[in-house]
Every structure is written in C-alpha cells, then in structure tokens.
C-alpha cells in the first residue's frame, strides 16, 4: 500500500524514504479520517443533496431520495424570498467591505504614526474581533433601541430625535452593517499595520523632499505598495460578509419584512422547515459566490505583479 513513487528517480534508493512515507501517512491519517468524514465528505454531499428532493422525513434514509436535477436551483431563482436575501447579502458585502477597510486603514495609518502606546491601542481596537457576535449583538440591540437606547440618547444631546434603528426596513440593514464594522475592523487593522511596514521609507522621504503632501504620498506610494494586502483584505472581509447571519438572527430575526435576512439565514430557515435539498442548493450558490470572489483575487494579484 505504501510503495515509493513508481516513476524512476535519478536519486539512489534511500532507505529513509520508505520510513518517511510510512511516518508521513501515520501522522496524516487521524486528520485525514476526521477531515474526510466531517469536512470534505459533507462539501461533496451538500452538492449531491442539492440535486435531490431530500427532506427531514428522509433523515434516516438519505439515499432513498429522488434525483431532481437542477429543479432546486430553478426554484431558488424564482423564489422571491431568495431574491430578496440575495440582494440583502450583496448589500452587506457592498456596504460592509469598503466601510470595514476604510475604518481599518484609518486606524492603521493613525497607529503607524504614533510613537508610544501603539501596542496598547492595537490590542484595544482588536478586542471586538475575539468576542462572540451573539453577545455583542445583544448589547447593540439595546444601543439601537428607540426609547432609551444609547445611540438615540447621545443624538438627543445634539437635538436629534433618532428613530428605532432596527424597526424600519430602511435603517435596519445599515445599522447591522455599522455594528459589523465595529466588530470586524480589528483583523484588517492588524493586517494593514503589518502592510504599512513594507512601504519603503526612502520613497516616502524622497516624495516629501519633492514637496508631496501627506495625502499624495499616501495615494501614490503607500496605497500602490499595499495593493496585494488590500486585495487580500477585501477578499477575506468579503467572504465574511457573504456569510452574514448571527447579527440578524439576534438583533432583528431577519426583519422587519425580511429586510435583514441573508442567504445564510435563508439556508438555516429552509433547513428548519425540513427542506434539506433546497437548503443545500442555496448554500451552494453562496459557496459559488465565495469561490468566484477568491478566484478574482488571484486573478487581480497576478495581473500587475
């Protein structure tokens, strides 16, 4: 079973080769068993299920189901709720990614030009990232409360009468995005801060001597140097927003009128209703979006470098 590679090698036969092969597979096997059963297997099974009519009643006989071809996907495209949650998810992506990146970049640039307390600020700004989304959502639900919410109380000091941020179809989704930005920017801040260290100081100094202001130096030297980092940051942040779920689950239950329901939320709903095949198809469309986003990143990274 564990033979050396069959193709002839120019190297002399190494007696250590065989023991390396054996050791390699001994070390790999526990991971591989768990990984195949609980990750790789389900990824393929999910695709398979999306072509069947499997429901919760088939739970004990998952192979005795009808093959329905692409009909789950066809139904999804027609489903007004799925259309709505797709638009919502795109809104999370299109609002969340630029906002998160802008905040992370502002903070990173600020920290990069600070001589003291940099480590302290970095830890503090990273805090929300490690905390449970469910827990911070509970807190933010009260921050956004209409009467007696912290946000509206603060606004009232300036004479502004704030709405019930989570109660209206126009403000609920942006409010969730703002909370998500608050929760997520720390990761990108750390990555951007590391990226800023790679910007060649000589170029910045030379530009300063030539009379370029801070903004022009940032725009024409810092940003181009950081292009790969920015792209990577945009993609991992985008993947996160495409999976938006917990915030809406806790703060709005997907409402009002499905205005905050996401594709992941939709998949969870369909699973709860027992429509397993339909849920799997919805999750695979989301997966497809994530794969496309990742491939676009690789494509863009190769283009100029």
């Amino acid at each position: 079973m564990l033979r050396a590679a069959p193709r002839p090698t120019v190297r002399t036969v190494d007696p250590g080769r065989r023991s390396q092969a054996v050791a390699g597979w001994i070390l790999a096997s526990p991971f591989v068993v768990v990984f195949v059963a609980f990750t790789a297997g389900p990824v393929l099974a999910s695709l398979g299920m999306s072509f069947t009519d499997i429901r919760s009643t088939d739970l004990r006989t998952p192979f005795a189901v009808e093959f329905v071809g692409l009909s789950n996907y066809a139904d999804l495209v027609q489903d007004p709720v799925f259309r709505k949650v797709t638009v919502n998810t795109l809104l999370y992506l299109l609002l969340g990614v630029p906002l998160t990146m802008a905040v992370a970049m502002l903070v990173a640039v600020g920290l990069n030009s600070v001589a003291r307390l940099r480590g302290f600020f970095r830890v503090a700004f990273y805090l929300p990232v490690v905390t449970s989304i469910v827990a911070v959502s509970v807190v933010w639900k009260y921050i956004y409360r209409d009467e007696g919410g912290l946000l509206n109380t603060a606004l009232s000091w300036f004479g502004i009468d704030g709405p019930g941020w989570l109660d209206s179809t126009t403000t609920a989704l942006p409010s969730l995005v703002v909370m998500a930005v608050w929760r997520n920017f720390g990761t990108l801040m750390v990555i951007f801060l590391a990226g800023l260290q790679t910007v060649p100081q000589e170029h910045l100094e030379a530009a300063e001597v030539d009379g370029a202001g801070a903004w022009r130096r940032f725009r024409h030297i810092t940003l181009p140097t950081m292009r790969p980092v920015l792209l990577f940051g945009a993609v991992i942040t985008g993947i996160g927003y495409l999976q938006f779920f917990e915030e809406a689950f806790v703060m709005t239950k997907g409402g009002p009128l499905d205005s905050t329901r996401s594709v992941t939320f939709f998949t969870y709903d369909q699973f709860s209703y027992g429509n397993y095949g339909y849920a799997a198809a919805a999750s695979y469309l989301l997966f497809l979006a994530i794969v496309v986003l990742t491939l676009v990143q690789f494509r863009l990274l190769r283009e100029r470098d």
Partner: protein
Amino acid sequence: MSETQVRTPRWLYAVLTIGLLLVVLPFAWMLVSSFKPEAEVRAVPPTWWPQTVTAENYDTLFTRLDFPTYFLNSAIVALAVTAGNVVFCSMLGYALAKLEFPGKRVLFVVVLGTLMVPGVVTFVPLFVLTTNLNLTNTLPGMILPFLAGPFGVFLIRQYVLGLPDELIQAARVDGAGELTIFARVIMPLCGPALATLAVLTFLTSWNNFLWPLVVATSEDKYTLPVALALYAVGQNATQYGLLLAGSVVVVLPVLVVFLLLQRYIVQGIAMTGIK
C-alpha cells in the same frame, strides 16, 4: 522615519482615544448595566452608573436558568476542539512541511482548498450524518466536525517550514525514528505556533454559533452563544438586564484569555494572514 516618529501630533492621540472609547464603551455599558435591576436597565433616559447595584441578574442566570450547564458545555466543546486541533494539525502540518510521502501534494491542495469553505455549506449533510451516527444533541456531535481544521494545518506547516532541515538530518543520523523526531525534536520547538493555534481555536470554538444551534436540540446541550441567542429572540427577549448579564458571561472568559495571550493572536495573523 525617526523624524515623523518623534513628532507625533497631540491631536492624533486625541482621535485614537475617541476611537478607543467607541470600541470599549459597549463592553463597559454591558458590564455596568448587568448589575442594574431590571427597571433601571429599561429607564429612559438610560443611567450610566447603577443607582442600585444588584447581582440578581447573575443569580437568575445561574440558579433559575441553566447557565452552569451551558457554560460547562461551551468549555468542554472548546477544550476538546482545541486539543484535537493541536494534536492532529501539528501531526499533519509537520508531515506536509518536512516529510516526503506519496499523495502529499494532493493532500495539501485539498486541505488548503477547504480553508474558505463556510460552515453553511456543510451543516445540512453534517446534520444527516450525525443523526445517523446517533450523535445529534450530544457533545461529541458538536466536537467531531471541528476536531481537525485546515487552518491549523496551514499554520503549523508554515512554522515548521522555517525550522532547519539539519535538525532532522542530525536526529536521523543519530538513529532516531521518524515519529520520535516529530515528537521529541520538532514539537518542543513549536511552542509559539502551538500556542497561537490553541488560543485561536479556543476563541473560535467558544464563539461558534451555527453548528451548535443546529445540532443541540434540547436545552441541556446548549452552548452559551446558543442559549443567549435563543433567550434573546424568545420569551426572555424583554429581560434586558438578564440578557446583558448573559452577554457578560459569554464575553468575559474570552476577554481574559485574549488579554493574557494576545501576543500569540497577533503572531498568528502575522504568520498566516488569516484570523
């Protein structure tokens, strides 16, 4: 470089401090308000310092509601998942970095390829699987799917690649077997990477939500985030003080772990570029 660093403008510290307040205030308000009686939490306008300090919210959580069980479930799941990842990922990570064996390249590509697979893609078939293994609504059913993740393999592999091959060659010359080399020569050198992996896995598992929500079907199997979320959208949705105290219980252990071990987390991001 030194010039700009010496002249840090005062206003920058002021701006950063305002930012700091915006980040920390929600946590501070959560902690302070969790000690207010229910009526005061609902007060309009809200109070900052509690007028009456009370531990009744925590008392309710831990005596009337079953938070000790949820806490225990969360801890067991997170510790088991962490142990599994530290052991399994370091084994495979080392093999991928330093050993030659058939199928290595394919294995690496497949594992790396699943790094971006979201939990929402696998939870439906996983539920079918755990049901047929009779693991639904059990702690092993929550633990097993997360026991061996691609992130840990990637992290350990990157770290071990940086260790010199001569160490391994020398041990081989001395007659050490391959598995002994892994356990006695390489692992003792991987302390920082293992610590990073352990901290990040623990935090991710502690905060994990979708899978525990799906697989825990009775209250005694809830983890903390599941219990908190279901209370927040269920019949306790208006018990503000109670929910804020619950949030404190979920967040506090994580903040302690983070503040004690934060350098390993920042290292991890630097090592892999991923949270």
